[in-house]
């Protein structure tokens, strides 16, 4: 028996809410870990404060905790559950940090840490220890020195050598660094940097800018067997975070000796660290002479390991978990071949390209420049037989309306200062005939990749309608990754024409298998990608089968919640013995795990590509409800192509998305909505706004995650908005709604089978209407809404669902004006919403599964889901924001969604549940100390009770002049604004005098003062709230935690009590 017999119960630490740099990849790895350990007969306990991941489903682990990921609470769980071992390597940096903290605090003495020792983690996490460690191994790393004066900087460079990168340690927004090529530049940059740094320190790094970045995914078991799962090459040069880079697998431009050298180094490092499991090693590689330096070692699964797993079919997290338990690689089977062992190296016979997905559409006005700081929220992957094909497929997968490379304006400066658009700009420069060597000089990208893009440019330049009449030429075009739409544009023909041409020539897409072994062994796992080589490996069964469309890349507004639903749907269909076919392109998520569905197609979610699968599979139906707006947008084109859409009739989508049809529907059902109008021009918008009176909420008519939505208060703002908005969506008019000030927003998630309606959850938002529902905290059950209002909401929801013939899930948003006793509907979406996993967990019902069963003919009655479920606990969902990662961003909330993820807090009462949700979202609310308050004019009249409550809780208060006066409390200390001279609030914050910041300001006019305060809070990690409702809830939470101990309780226990 290879497994350590003392280990019977293992705690898996999750990574918490989705944030930039720590996202869905840990949803995937943690879920795999749970499954993998259970397969070995281990009892699993999971802790993760993320409600949206499938990991925190109670059937994923034996016991699931959604408690905040703090060492103290995790220690409580360890004690309560009598844990034998901890698996820290599946929860990203969070998992490692908590484990080292637990170790430092002596809270895990006698408990086995699986996979890694705490010391190993420190050897690679601590900058100095890492340098020492690599020195012992004789492996080179870039030299780095921290200095506090210009003299020291000069001295440091004598050792390091020019060029160097100078980075101020700790500045506002990470600004003030630069590259110094000589002493003159060094003096200038270093002295400026020292001034900018809050601690007057700059870091001098040896420059490897412009080198290549190469990654190796390595595995090791306790017998010292080591394998390389995958090599990956960043298309972007060093200086751009690997999470920001386009990455290709396997590495393309290294010769056998170079691969050998990096491989040997990787194995040496993982052996020296004694890791049992997976490890990611990043190298800078000098393309001029083959030198390399070790940049980073991650002794855990990572974003790259998720990518490598999907790119090769080798499930790193799953195997790592088993290896951590003590199994050796040769004792574990390769899932794909079923009869060869996991102790081999995957070899691939295709090209994989990954592209990050950035949130710049949500943060207008901030710099799109990419660099060492990760800004992307998600990524897409595509597989092709050529680099060109894989790259173009990957671009299409972004779901940003690109058909592939597209021409856009650029300058040489753009090429030298990369943004998310750099590849389009390179393509455009090539199209304009710019010399490839010049582009190489500007971008520092390997010419290998530039020539590949040029191949596409050359091909496109060559395409004519006449040439396309040759079937071989046509096939070549498809092998270049050109979509029918692109070919139509290039030839001036219609897409339909191109499609017919393809049919006539019988140039069909073929599907090939991802099999870990380049065809050497038979693959048993149907994991497919499409290409235009002739050999087609797709085998179609004659079983009943259903296609589920995924949600594509994780982005703001469309997060892992949708992936969660797709996975549930697939599992539900499997239980019904229906063959499940999943189409998605996100390498980070559980849905693209090859053992979730009967068949996985790693494909773009465009009409042409989805039809490519459907035409060959000929499924009994397609489910579009779970993939967010991505799949919903396909429902009409698919239905028009004769594909059966399961569940809610697709016409109903139009009835709620088209404003006029929606208004008719509401009239018919006697449901109120805020006054509104449609506008195609500024004049029209102005007319509407004047009719319904300002403030108004403006947005394009088709929206996802509140894109380009804004509250405007006057004509000037409206005009400005119209200028920008028209670009967003030219085919659809702008919606102008009356903005309901001081309304409370509610969300309803319900199930309907066409006859009955099950109200799954009514969520009361904490932040007032006007803050995007995805950004607002919310609570189940509602805390302040009278029963009769809730009854109205139930009644409206039921009527609407039945009228629309909903079969499956629907989400409805309401705004309630308590003073007027009015309920207004804001919007209705006949599909799964982002709150489905949260509600499912709060009430203990797998909503997405039930929705799927309804779509295949079951009734709510079959599941006894007739009455709303009453819960005794309170569940709070809080949004988690990427402000720290986006240096220029402001933290003020509005109708545009900005959050990347969410946390959950569950407890007996609202205060404690809210406290937990905040802690999980990174807001460690203080129990005592000093609160700074500064609110906008409209809020002053409401600040008095808040200030009084804070005082009652024992806090000292400090406020800006106007706010202090508004409280009517003369004891409150007044402090100057930043613009009023010093000493001011900035100094107080920097001196760490402030423990909580309450700061509200008016949307766009937000004064510079407010911005500086909020940015400082972000950078210094000081808890802050930017709405009054948030402030009230925070004080409520503080009161709860002052009086009570924080207890841990599993989700299983809460569900049992229902």
């Amino acid at each position, binding site marked *: 028996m290879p497994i350590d017999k003392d280990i019977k119960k293992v705690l898996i630490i999750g990574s918490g809410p989705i944030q930039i740099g720590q996202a869905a990849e840990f949803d995937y790895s943690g879920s795999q870990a749970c499954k993998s350990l259970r397969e070995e007969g281990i009892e699993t306990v999971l802790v993760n404060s993320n409600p949206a991941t499938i990991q925190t489903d109670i059937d994923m682990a034996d016991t699931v905790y959604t408690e905040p990921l703090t060492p103290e609470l995790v220690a409580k769980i360890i004690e309560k559950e009598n844990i034998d071992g901890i698996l820290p390597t599946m929860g990203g940096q969070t998992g490692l940090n908590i484990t080292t903290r637990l170790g430092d605090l002596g809270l895990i003495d006698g408990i086995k840490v699986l996979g890694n020792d705490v010391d190993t983690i420190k050897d690679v996490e601590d900058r100095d220890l890492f340098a020492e460690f690599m020195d012992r191994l004789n492996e080179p790393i870039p030299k780095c020195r921290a200095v506090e004066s210009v003299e020291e900087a000069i001295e440091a460079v004598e050792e390091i050598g020019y060029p160097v990168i100078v980075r101020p340690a700790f500045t506002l927004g990470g600004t003030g660094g630069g590259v110094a090529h000589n002493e003159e530049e060094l003096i200038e940059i270093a002295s400026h940097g020292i001034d900018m740094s809050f601690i007057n320190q700059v870091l001098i790094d040896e420059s490897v800018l412009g080198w290549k970045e190469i990654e190796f995914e390595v595995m090791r078991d306790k017998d010292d067997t080591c394998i390389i799962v995958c090599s990956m090459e960043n298309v972007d040069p060093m200086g751009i975070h690997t999470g920001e880079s386009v990455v290709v697998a396997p590495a393309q*431009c290294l010769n056998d000796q170079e691969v050998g050298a990096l491989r040997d180094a990787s194995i040496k490092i993982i052996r020296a660290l004694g890791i049992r499991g997976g490890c990611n090693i990043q190298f800078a590689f000098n393309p001029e002479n083959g030198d390399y330096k070790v940049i980073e070692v991650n002794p855990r699964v990572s974003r790259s390991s998720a990518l490598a797993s999907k790119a090769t079919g080798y499930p790193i997290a799953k195997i790592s978990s088993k290896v951590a338990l003590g199994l050796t690689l040769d004792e574990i089977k390769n899932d794909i071949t079923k009869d*060869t062992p996991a102790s081999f190296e995957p070899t691939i016979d295709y090209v994989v390209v990954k592209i990050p997905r950035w949130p710049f559409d949500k943060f207008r006005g901030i710099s799109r420049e990419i660099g060492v700081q990760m800004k992307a929220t998600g990524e897409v992957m595509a597989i092709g037989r050529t680099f060109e094909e894989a790259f173009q497929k990957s671009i299409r997968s972004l779901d940003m309306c690109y058909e592939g490379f597209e021409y856009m304006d650029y300058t040489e400066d753009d090429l030298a200062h990369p943004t998310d658009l750099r590849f389009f700009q390179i393509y455009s420069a090539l199209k304009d005939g710019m010399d490839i060597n010049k582009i190489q000089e500007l971008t520092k990208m390997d010419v*290998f990749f530039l020539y590949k893009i040029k191949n596409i440019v050359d091909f496109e330049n060559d395409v004519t309608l006449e040439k396309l009449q040759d079937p071989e030429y046509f096939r070549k075009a498809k092998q270049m990754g050109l979509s029918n739409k692109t070919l139509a544009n290039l030839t001036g023909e219609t897409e339909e024409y191109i499609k017919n041409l393809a049919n006539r020539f019988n140039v069909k897409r073929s599907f090939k298998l991802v099999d870990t072994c380049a065809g050497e062994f038979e693959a048993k796992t149907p994991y497919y990608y499409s290409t235009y*080589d002739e*050999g087609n490996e797709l085998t179609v069964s004659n079983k009943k089968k259903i296609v589920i469309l995924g949600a594509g890349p994780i982005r703001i507004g469309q997060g892992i919640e949708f992936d969660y639903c797709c996975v549930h749907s697939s599992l539900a269909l499997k239980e019904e013995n229906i063959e499940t076919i999943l189409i998605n392109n996100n390498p980070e998520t559980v849905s693209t795990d090859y053992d979730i569905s009967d068949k996985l197609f790693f494909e773009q979610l465009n009409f042409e590509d989805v039809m490519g699968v459907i035409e060959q599979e000929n499924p009994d139906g397609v489910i579009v409800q779970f993939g967010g707006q991505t799949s919903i947008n396909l429902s009409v084109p698919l239905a028009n192509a004769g594909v059966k859409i399961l569940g809610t009739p697709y016409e109903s989508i139009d009835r709620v998305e088209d404003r006029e049809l929606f208004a008719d529907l509401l009239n018919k059902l006697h449901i109120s909505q805020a006054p509104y109008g449609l506008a195609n021009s500024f004049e029209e918008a102005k007319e509407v706004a004047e009719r319904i009176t300002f403030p108004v909420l403006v947005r394009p008519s088709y929206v996802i995650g509140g894109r380009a939505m804004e509250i405007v208060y006057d004509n000037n703002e409206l005009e400005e908005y119209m200028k920008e908005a028209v670009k967003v969506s030219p085919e659809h008019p702008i919606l102008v709604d009356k903005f309901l000030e001081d309304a409370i927003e509610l969300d309803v998630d319900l199930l309907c089978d066409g006859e009955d309606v099950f109200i799954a959850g009514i969520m009361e938002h904490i932040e007032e209407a006007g803050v995007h529902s995805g950004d607002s905290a919310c609570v189940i059950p509602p805390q302040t809404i009278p029963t009769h209002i809730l009854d109205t909401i139930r009644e409206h929801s039921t009527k609407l669902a039945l009228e629309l013939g909903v079969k499956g899930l629907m989400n409805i948003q309401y705004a309630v004006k308590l003073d007027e006793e009015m309920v207004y509907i804001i919007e209705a979406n006949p599909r799964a919403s982002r709150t489905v996993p949260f509600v499912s967990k709060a009430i203990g019902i797998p909503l997405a599964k039930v929705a799927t069963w309804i779509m295949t003919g079951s009734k709510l009655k079959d599941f006894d889901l007739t009455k709303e479920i009453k819960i005794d606990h309170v569940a709070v969902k809080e949004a988690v924001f990427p402000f720290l990662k986006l240096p220029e961003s402001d933290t003020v909330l509005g109708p545009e969604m900005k959050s990347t993820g969410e946390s959950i807090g569950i407890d007996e009462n609202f205060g404690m549940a809210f406290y937990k949700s905040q802690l999980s979202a990174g807001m460690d609310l203080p129990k005592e100390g000093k609160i700074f308050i500064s609110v906008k004019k409209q809020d002053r009249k409401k600040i008095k009770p808040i200030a009084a409550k804070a005082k009652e809780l024992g806090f000292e208060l400090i406020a800006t002049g106007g706010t202090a006066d508004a409280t009517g409390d003369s004891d409150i200390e007044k402090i100057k604004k930043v613009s009023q001279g010093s000493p001011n609030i900035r100094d107080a914050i920097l001196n760490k005098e402030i423990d909580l910041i309450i700061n509200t300001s008016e949307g766009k006019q937000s004064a510079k003062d407010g911005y500086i305060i909020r940015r400082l809070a972000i950078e210094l990690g000081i808890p802050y709230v930017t709405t009054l409702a948030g402030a009230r809830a925070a004080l409520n939470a503080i009161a709860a935690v002052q009086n009570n101990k924080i207890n841990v309780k599993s989700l299983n226990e809460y569900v049992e009590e229902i």
Partner: protein
Amino acid sequence: MKKQAKLALEDGTILKGEGFGYETTKVGEVVFSTGMGGYTESLTDPSAKGAILMSTYPVEGNYGVCEDWYQSDKIQVEGFVVREVCKHVSNFSYQKTLDDFLTEFKVPGISGIDTRDLTLKIREYGTLKGAISTEEIDDDELIALARDQSDDVGSELVKLVSTKEIQQFSEDFDKKVAILDCGVKKSVIQEFLQRDIGVVVFPYDTDYKTILDYDPKGLLVSPGPGNPDSIVESITTIQKLANRLPVFGICSGQQLIAKSFGAKSFKMKFGHRGGNQPVRDLETGKVYITSQSHGFTIDKESLKGTGLELTQINLNDGTPEGIGHEELPILGIQYRPEATPGPNDTKFVFDDFSKMMDDY
């Protein structure tokens, strides 16, 4: 100008693609290698003589060709089959493109082939005889050429790649190893020289006395092409030396040792070619990732009663990867510890043999 090329298989299949390299027609056995790099090394490996090599990785030639990477003085394969040849090369050490490299050594290449599809075919039916042409040629004629090859070529191929004269490297080292050259790679010689062991390379048919005259401390039987059955001269020499010197056999060298003790080898369905094969050492239980390139292997059962014993096995299919002898200092390894191409993880095998020579 793009030129047409064809690949014909013995089963009558004709695959059309684009030609590169030299304009000519060649015949050989179509085999696939799953390595993702190292094409220069594979193409110049003498044991690939007689093969039409196909890469399963779809883009080849990305980093060009450098003469330092050659494993012999020329390209040994009969033809190269790829999905795509990279035209714009990137690597600081490259001297020529893959296309020019093939042209230089008069070897034809074909690109634009669905190599995965062909790999699956070979997986199903086994290695196929083939003919590759970058010239104007009739389909039927090319198929006939593919079919018209003798099945088990062996000594003819070895004759072509083995040294004609005895060659010495670093004669001044005290410790010397004799290499019986059935198609030795440069990197094998390098491995010895790096360990301060002099090397004397002998033609494959050298008699044992000539070898002993050079006073080597051990004998290495090199890898080589073709069916080991027919290389009788080498087998005889090994028989004579096996109780006089420590003997180390790599790849087909291991099979020749086995034969000299009376064991048998057989042709595998499609062989092992690539850099990812897992091997277990039966004594230590350790698992290694190895580089391999062979189409024949030892019949495990036939080892019984020969005094030879199995020491290592392949974890994918259980085939023998290493042999030893009950009494004699014999080390047989089926994989390629010298790497180039592929993982360097088993280079310690050369240390093991060096120690064997010291201990003898």
